[in-house]
């Protein structure tokens, strides 16, 4: 019934802006018997979302009203800020990747993510995200790219600072000639992320040093990955541009990605 009720409220039909409210025909005021205003403030399901519940409406005194009666005090409202929400996501991934001064190709796949955030209007808010990227490469390069990244932290106003770790198994091998490429390897390291929420724009950077744990790839040097991007936010769709520069096994690699995110 709740879903039906909300579905009804969400039902919409096209209208030419600006909307014009239909006329509500009210009989002559003299015929009406006024009801006393309650003045009560009911609790609301929206209160945990940071919204004050709509106040009881004080109608225009077109008709005389009786004195306000004594009303039962409203039940205590649940405090905002003590709730955490989360959601799962599944997104396609599309990027172009390659070796610096070497062959390049497309990286195709999907990302499964889990986001959580604190429901609060406070300046300090906690949030985090974990994501599993599953990519395959086509074109002049080959090899898998599997990443599990999980970082968590806080948003201090518009500034987000998050830290966690990244586990990655990948290889980037030239399909035809072009040297040995990046041999397969399993690497693990911490990751730090910073983002700046500017409203329609959101630039972000991430740094991941990693050590090779297994695989034929050389483990002599520390791998370093710099990620960065810019989100261009629209009313119902975000355009996400991202790039990465990585050094591993005496090689330099790059990646450029494009993504879309839809929202209400």
């Amino acid at each position, binding site marked *: 019934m709740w*879903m039906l*009720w909300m579905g009804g409220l969400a039902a919409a039909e096209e209208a030419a802006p600006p909307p014009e409210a239909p006329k*509500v025909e009210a009989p002559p005021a003299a015929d009406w*018997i006024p009801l006393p205003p*309650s003045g009560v403030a009911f609790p*609301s*399901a929206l209160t945990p979302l940071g919204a004050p519940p709509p106040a009881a409406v004080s109608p225009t005194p077109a008709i005389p009203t009786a004195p306000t009666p004594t009303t039962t005090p409203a039940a205590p409202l649940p405090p905002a800020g003590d709730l955490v929400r989360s959601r799962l996501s599944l997104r396609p991934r599309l990027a172009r990747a390659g070796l610096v001064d070497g062959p390049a190709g497309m990286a195709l796949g999907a990302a499964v993510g889990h986001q959580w*955030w604190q429901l609060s209007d406070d300046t300090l808010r906690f949030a985090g995200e974990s994501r599993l990227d599953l990519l395959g490469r086509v074109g002049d390069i080959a090899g898998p790219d599997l990443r599990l990244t999980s970082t968590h932290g806080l948003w201090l106003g518009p500034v987000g600072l998050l830290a966690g770790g990244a586990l990655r198994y990948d290889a980037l091998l030239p399909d035809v000639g072009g040297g040995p490429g990046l041999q397969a390897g399993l690497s693990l390291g911490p990751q730090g992320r910073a983002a700046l929420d500017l409203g329609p724009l959101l630039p972000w950077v991430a740094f991941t040093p990693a050590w090779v744990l297994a695989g034929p790839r050389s483990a002599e040097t520390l791998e370093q990955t710099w990620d960065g991007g810019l989100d261009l936010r629209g009313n119902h769709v975000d355009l996400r541009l991202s790039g990465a520069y990585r050094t591993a096994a005496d090689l330099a690699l790059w990646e450029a990605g494009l993504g879309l995110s839809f*929202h209400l």
Partner: protein
Amino acid sequence: MPLLSLATLLALPAGVGIDEEVEAWEPRARPLLDGPAACVQVQGQATVALAVMQPGGWRGPGKTEHHTLSGPFTGTLDHGVWRELTAALTTAPGVSPAVRMTDLMPVTGRKAGAHKKGEVQLGLTTGDNGESFDISAAGAQGINLVDGILEGIRPDVTLSWMEAGPDNGVVLVQRAPVKGADDDQMIDLRTTFPGRGAPSRLDVTLPRVIKVGDGLVKASIYDGQVHVLATPTPLGPLPTEESASVVAGLLGFTVGVDQRLTYTAYRPCGG
């Protein structure tokens, strides 16, 4: 009365019940849901608050956008059935996106809408003045909102008892477990009879979280609640204030709705 489960019995607050015939008070609570046993025209003001949640994580702290629509309504409540109900709710002038709403689902009374059950239409128009949504909808036909919720829950067990109320009155408490709720949480219906007279207030509280759906796609219902405040009239108890609010999450999108109706005046039909 169905069999009582152990969880339900454990949920009964100790020492709050009073010696009253519950069966005698249950039918007396119905006027808050049905309205008076007469035909009455009402008018008032309605406010609908919408909250659209944007998720947080790597790309933001998460935020909630709030929109409020308000406007007058008028209707005819004939022995518990809304024969006519007209509303004209709009966002405040200059607010974008402009939203209008022409239909309501009152807590009191049964809605006899012309729409099919579950019908949903979506539309969006972009014009010179920005985006414009037009909301026009009806709830289920001929069913009361609270009755519909209980119909959806289909509780196996219902427990009722009486508590002391204001002005030497009583409070009828009806409690039932909800499938899909965490920790065997219950739905509570509390009807207040001040001075043991006509009912003046109904508070329906659902569990904090209810999961709906058996497959991969599940909806979550958060903090659902219904409240009605009534005043006695020569025709019977009439609502003066009512609200219904809920937050629902589905496929990663979360939307909250709070509908409030303030009844300002009434008159008998044909008056």
